[in-house]
């Protein structure tokens, strides 16, 4: 008999091995058998998600995709980001502005702040022509 995910309603063929690792759509671990005739019933009857939820007496859980990081490299605080050993992202604007070094390690918010580089006195710069 075909299976159906209790969480999202996705249907699977009889004996489908996909469900062994959980529903590929929602990760749900519970499935129930459905009659062969009932397969695609929800879709054929054009049931809305709301209606299915009402029938199952469950709340609709919406999984929103994680918002993508929008900070452009030039807006970031760090001069150099060490993504992984041997892989770097450089903020040339920051590097051009001063010797102050802030490094970010990995993609987490872990920073190394080189205080020495910031404590250097600013040189009295004459404007070149």
């Amino acid at each position, binding site marked *: 008999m075909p299976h159906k995910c209790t969480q999202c309603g996705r249907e699977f063929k009889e004996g489908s091995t996909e469900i062994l690792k959980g529903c590929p759509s929602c990760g749900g671990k519970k499935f129930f058998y459905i009659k062969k005739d009932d397969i695609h019933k929800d879709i054929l009857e054009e049931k809305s998600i709301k209606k299915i939820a009402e029938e199952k007496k469950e709340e609709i859980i919406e999984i929103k995709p994680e918002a993508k990081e929008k900070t452009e*490299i030039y807006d970031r605080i760090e001069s150099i980001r060490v993504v992984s050993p*041997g892989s770097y992202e450089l903020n040339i604007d920051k590097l051009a502005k001063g010797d102050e070094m802030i490094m970010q390690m990995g993609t987490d918010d872990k920073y190394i702040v080189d205080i020495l580089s910031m404590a250097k006195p600013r040189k009295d710069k004459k404007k070149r022509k």
Partner: protein
Amino acid sequence: MSFLIRTKKKFSRVIRALFKKKQMRIGIYGPPNAGKTTLSNRIVRDWTGDAVGPVSEIPHETRRARRKEGVKISDENGNSITIDVVDTPGVTTKIDYKEFLEYGIEQDEAIIRAREATEGVAEAMHWLREDIDGVIYMLDSTQDPFIQVNIMLVGIIESRDLPVIIIANKNDLPDAAPGRIKSAFPQHPVISISGLEGNNVEELYEKMIEYFG
């Protein structure tokens, strides 16, 4: 290491101040593999007979800024300038050792290369801030000039009021499109050359005398 370099730089600055020798220091900037070292070598070889550094097709071959002092460039009319040529590492926003693996470099070596290249970019930006009086901005005319690094870096150079000549390099290649570079940077003189073949470098020398002199 950087302490040593800084001390050395301070020293040379003092010595320069003592002798009051004012030379334009021209930095050759641009993205990796644009042909910066090839052009530096050509300029230096044409006018002094020396070379600046090795070139290769692998990006980030130049990972330390290299300098050749007192290069005198002159034209037929007797005009001349004496400049220091500074060949800089290619400026980019992302360096990943994996891109070197494609060129057959071992992983350990590629990781070291990436680290040195990162240092090199930081160093190039440091030079731009302190020691450069004029810029030759190299672009590979077979590539899209509208990448963010170019716009950004040219913007930084402009904000420092440095004179800049833009070079559309590699005009010996069939898919070179120097026109694209001209339209990307209409505010600066653009000269189409081939650093490798030497096409049109005379025009560049004339422009350098006119522009940096």
